[in-house]
């Protein structure tokens, strides 16, 4: 995807951040961006749900505002109103004006959790994997940033790439591959246990991989959680929580803490790995007993713990 350079009369690009049916998780995740002060020197929020903004929500709802980039957070409900104006009218007006639209978060992208309540709740262009037509004329200028929430670097990095006219390779849902080309599995500190097919995983331990028993979806979930660590320090899977697949269209699935299996084999295999390849490698790996993996990482080989 290549966007034509956004020429504006102002020195900074104007961003309008609209909240639909949202928990504001993406807005708060954005506040965790370390260099937010530098970012705010280069971009202006004509409206943001938390930060001081140039305009009030009533100005937005009365169509008094101009913007270069439209960010939508939250699921779209047919009859939802903001400041007493139908959200549909507000979105249509500003989407038409904006050079680029960002659906921020899984709710705005695919409907997310709240779409499970009603068929009338969806993302802007998708309801899970189903492509919707209502806003189709804006699809080609939409960038999908899914996640619950989206890592602040994913949003900020994308905004800078838009501003700088950077070529943005994208996937089938218009997600930038710089972020969504990765799987959550990439960079997870528990990878070795996956590679050598160590099924055993106990919560509360640094060892083990939760793919086999506890429902981890990291091998088929597109997001850079283990490339750009959260708050720069950690990720859910590193901590020991199974990936819940929160950046994928079908989030949330049911029975999230258990791996569904067929004949003892995980029902969902790593992204685009043929079943035969997976089973062959798993078969080979399982023929070996590697002693190191049966030991705790923080346990000395002998009684060598230092006692002062």
């Amino acid at each position: 995807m290549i966007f034509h350079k956004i020429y504006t009369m102002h020195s900074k690009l104007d961003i309008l951040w609209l909240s639909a049916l949202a928990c504001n998780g993406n807005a708060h995740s954005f506040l965790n961006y370390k260099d937010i002060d530098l970012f705010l020197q280069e971009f202006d929020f004509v409206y943001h749900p938390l930060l001081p903004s140039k305009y009030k929500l009533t100005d937005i709802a009365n169509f008094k505002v101009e913007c270069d980039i439209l960010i939508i957070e939250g699921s779209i409900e047919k009859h939802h109103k903001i400041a007493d104006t139908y959200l549909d009218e507000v979105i249509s007006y500003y989407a038409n004006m904006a050079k680029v639209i960002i659906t921020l978060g899984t709710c705005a992208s695919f409907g997310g959790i709240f779409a499970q309540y009603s068929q009338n709740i969806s993302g802007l262009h998708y309801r899970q994997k189903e492509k919707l037509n209502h806003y189709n004329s804006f699809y080609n200028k939409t960038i999908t940033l899914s996640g619950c929430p989206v890592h602040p670097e994913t949003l900020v990095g994308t905004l800078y790439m838009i501003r700088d006219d950077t070529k943005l390779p994208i996937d089938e849902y218009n997600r930038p591959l710089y972020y969504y080309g990765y799987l959550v599995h990439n960079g997870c500190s528990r990878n070795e246990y996956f590679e050598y097919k160590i099924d055993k995983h106990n919560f509360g331990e640094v060892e083990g991989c939760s793919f086999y028993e506890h429902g981890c979806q990291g091998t088929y979930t597109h997001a850079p959680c283990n490339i750009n660590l959260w708050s720069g320090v950690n990720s859910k899977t590193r901590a020991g929580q199974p990936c819940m697949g929160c950046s994928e269209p079908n989030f949330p699935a049911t029975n999230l803490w258990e791996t569904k299996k067929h004949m003892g084999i995980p029902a969902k295999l790593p992204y685009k790995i043929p079943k035969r390849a997976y089973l062959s490698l798993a078969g080979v790996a399982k023929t070996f007993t590697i002693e190191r993996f049966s030991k705790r990482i923080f346990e000395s080989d002998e009684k060598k713990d230092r006692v002062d």
Partner: protein
Amino acid sequence: MKKKIELIEKIEGEAWLEYEYKNDYIEHVFIKFASSRYIEDILKNRPPLDALAINPRVCGICGHAHLIATVRALEDCYDSIYIPQKALDTRELTLIFELIQNHFKWFYLTIYPLVTSQNSITKATIPSQTASEAIAILAGQYPHTSYSIVGGVVSEITPLMIRLVAQKIDRLIAIFKEYIINRDLDEFLYCNKIEEMLKKEGDLPYIMQNIVDKNWQQLGRSHDRFIVFGKSGLFKSGKSIHTRYRQHIDTKYITTFTTPNSKAKSLLYREKFYETGPLARAMLNKTPLIKEAHRRFGDSIFSRILARVCEIPQLLLYAKQITKSINFSEPSYIEPPKLPAFATGTGIVEAARGSLIHKVEIKDNLISNYTIMTPTQWNLGNGTPNNPSSAQKALKGLHKNMPTELVFKSFDVCSVCTTH
């Protein structure tokens, strides 16, 4: 009777205030929240443990409190279950950090601009990022981790992690002294003189002095009734009417009702509205400075704002104490027996804005009913002119030119929690 409708925004969503005036003074206010996300319905017929992943998404700013309330509700479904103290301590720590990030954000993004007409974004984000880092060290990420599970926590809590967390606490203490008030934490906690606090350097004395200079210190007085359901090493539960403390309270006396035209529930205790949150906690804890503020200004915006900021050093010192007492020889998690197929459970947490209660009912291994009662539903309910909620009472009698938005937001409105 004159009427005016005002949209209140930047409250994790929006709310409408419909004022009724008598001679330019507010006679009554109807508080309207226009949208809901139906989370209680979405949870029905799901496996109970899925609630651990879904419920943090009730709220972007206090989702962690919802996670802890969920895990407590699920653990309450067992006749008995052993949770290692190390896991309980870790949960307490992450909850404390969420409260701290809330308090800083509220003070600098909500109160500071309303009192001074100035903005101070990085004074909100720097401490809240530090608190988020501390949560991420223990829980993987913030917001929206589900690291706390039935039986403990998913992370192996190591001395290395706790050292890092302790350093974040020291950083937050330094930030508090640099931004909020230039005083040692211990000294500040025992201070019981308003003028002594006002004389110090920092944004807290600056804001509070501003409020005094504008003669707003008595504004926003409500019923003077407080309730705290959650207990911790820092907070005690009970209720306080004026300054009379009663320890015994029970969630069975909570009733809820809805009002036409608003998606929010209102909560009552024995048919009465109570205020919950930092002021309530400080009243029950008898925090010296808040006791003094309350003696002089009652349950006004002055006491409410001061109580919330005064909670930060208490939380930091409590967190420090926890980091020093963690027993690393304990496990972080002990696998519990399977959840009962039929059960009910209640989970209570003191969230940033007050008492948060989750109730789960399980039938045939699935959630049959889930109820979420949030602090904002206590404080911002819709009563009648004769029996107004805490926020309605706080606004009643104000002249139309008085800072109504500040009074309303002194309760810290969380629209998404209110309607979830």
